[in-house]
């Protein structure tokens, strides 16, 4: 075919191709918008499922859809704020996080109020503003948010920038959170009754709160509980004290590991077992417990508690003390190392 006829055919083919393209575009558009047909709640449920499967990008996208469908979905807004704050499934964007927290917080969402309080307190995505932070935390705390109550307790206990020091108020906030099973608050209450500054020392009360936190797996509380039991004679029950010390040590708490090492090493409360003692010292040293590192260094340097002195091993531990930033005020480790290196050179 030549001439106008083929021209017409060409134009027709071109326009058909354009229409096909336009139709394909419409199909793509419809497919891409199907999510609009579902409810915000459905997308929020999907976000939770994705999170539980650690599908983080999917989690983030589901949250975006949740708040796109319902701009007042406070759970979704708060979670989206967290996603931006921590960079979950998206790039970290603390400024965006503040906006989402604020949108949910202003609609009375306790968790978001708590989060907004924290970002003001920390200056994440906003200029640091402790007063503003505390104001939001108080709103959340008044709604019964245990994390916020804990923070309020900490502010009252610290005083200064965060408000007037007021221990009884601190106890009041901690108690509210503690009664909801907030382990860190239980531990704080234990501390307040254990080492009082302004309240009456009450070991029974202290042990009671430590025990609650200890049962929730709070390692510091497990450790403190073991000492409260022994110290106060609250219950003359050394095996129980040892059991809690074991628990804290097994949980990886360096101080507890070192103390347990002492017990075995000297046979204090348990049959003396130097091998066990050494094993716990080593674990504590791995956790960079400075006292444990020193103990090991001195034991090898002086041949004390080990079969014989071993300067090479002592040097190793003194070196670790220096490297771990553990050296004491006298520069004991550095001095020892210097002295023995000189001697080595002299020999």
């Amino acid at each position, binding site marked *: 075919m030549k001439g106008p006829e083929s021209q017409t055919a060409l134009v027709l083919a071109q326009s058909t191709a*354009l*229409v*096909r*393209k*336009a*139709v*394909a*575009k*419409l*199909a*793509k*558009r*419809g*497919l891409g*918008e*199907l999510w*609009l*047909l579902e409810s915000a709640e459905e997308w929020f449920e999907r976000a939770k499922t994705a999170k539980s499967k650690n599908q983080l990008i999917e989690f983030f996208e589901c949250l975006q859809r949740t708040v796109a469908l319902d701009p007042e979905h406070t759970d979704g807004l708060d979670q989206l704020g967290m996603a931006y704050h921590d960079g979950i499934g998206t790039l970290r964007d603390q400024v965006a996080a503040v906006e989402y927290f604020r949108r949910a917080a202003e609609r009375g969402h306790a968790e978001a109020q708590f989060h907004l309080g924290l970002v003001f307190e920390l200056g994440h995505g906003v200029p640091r503003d402790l007063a503003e932070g505390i104001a939001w935390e108080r709103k959340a705390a008044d709604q019964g948010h245990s994390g916020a109550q804990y923070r309020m307790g900490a502010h009252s206990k610290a005083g200064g920038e965060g408000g007037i020091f007021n221990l009884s108020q601190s106890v009041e906030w901690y108690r509210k959170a503690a009664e909801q099973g907030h382990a860190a608050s239980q531990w704080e209450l234990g501390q307040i009754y254990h080492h009082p500054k302004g309240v009456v020392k009450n070991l029974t009360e202290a042990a009671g709160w430590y025990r609650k936190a200890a049962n929730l797996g709070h390692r510091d509380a497990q450790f403190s509980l073991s000492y409260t039991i022994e110290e106060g004679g609250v219950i003359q029950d050394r095996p129980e004290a040892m059991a809690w010390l074991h628990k804290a040590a097994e949980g990886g708490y360096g101080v507890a590991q070192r103390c347990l090492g002492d017990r075995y090493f000297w046979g204090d409360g348990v049959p003396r077992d130097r091998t066990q003692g050494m094993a716990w010292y080593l674990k504590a040293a791995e956790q960079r417990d400075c006292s444990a590192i020193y103990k090991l260094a001195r034991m090898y340097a002086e041949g004390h508690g080990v079969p014989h002195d071993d300067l090479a091993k002592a040097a190793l531990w003194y070196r670790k003390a220096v490297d771990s930033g553990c050296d004491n005020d006298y520069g004991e480790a550095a001095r020892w190392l210097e002295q023995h290196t000189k001697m080595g050179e002299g020999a």
Partner: protein
Amino acid sequence: MKTNLVHRLTPEEEELAAKREELARLESQLADQELLLASLKAELAAFEGLYLRRVGVLYAELDEWNALFAELRAEQAGTPEAKAEADEARTQAEEAYSATHGEAANVQPFTPSSDLKRLYREAAKRVHPDTATDEADRARRERLMKEVNAAYAKGDEDALRRILAGFDASPDAVQGLDIGADLIRVLRQLKQLRDRIAAIESEIAGLSEADLAKLKAKADLAATEGRDLLAEMAANIQGRVNVARQRVEKKSDEGTGK
């Protein structure tokens, strides 16, 4: 017991017979595949028509209101950016219009009768170009196969019957005396058939990749739950059309200083 066998086949004859059997099997298989492909295409075209009529037109309307709004704003703002946005919105509206007011939107639901399917299968088997033995034969069969496909898509049983009745026995019905030549021809036909079957398989796989096919799959799934997905989509877009229209009315009131 075949004790009365009088003629013993030569190895070449045996081979040819075996290949012819295979050829018959493949022809039958190919006809099934062609039927599947033609049905899929027809169903997709029908769904496309339905989609364009029920959902596409609303997108076109939405785009029209959005284009009007962008044009009003460009008129009032007078900035090059606003003008560019208005042009873009207008192009999109025209595209959506062309998609929803063309032939594709007129394709009606496809509900083939079992007779239609049977006729198609028979015709496809008889006229299929890949059973051709030479170029002239192939050209003729390709033209016929197009007619067969078109008739099937339109649900035109009579056309299929006419094609079947008018189809001459192909030249390969007359068998040559040269067994070697016959064998070569059959082998070539076998290859053609296998190639075509493989091509259909990949074409079917490709079809389901298209957005429209995915939409159809979602709509079919929704239907099993008693939902009408296209109606839900239409309702959603209708809501947005209403908002877009109000926006235009408000903007045009602003423009006239009301």
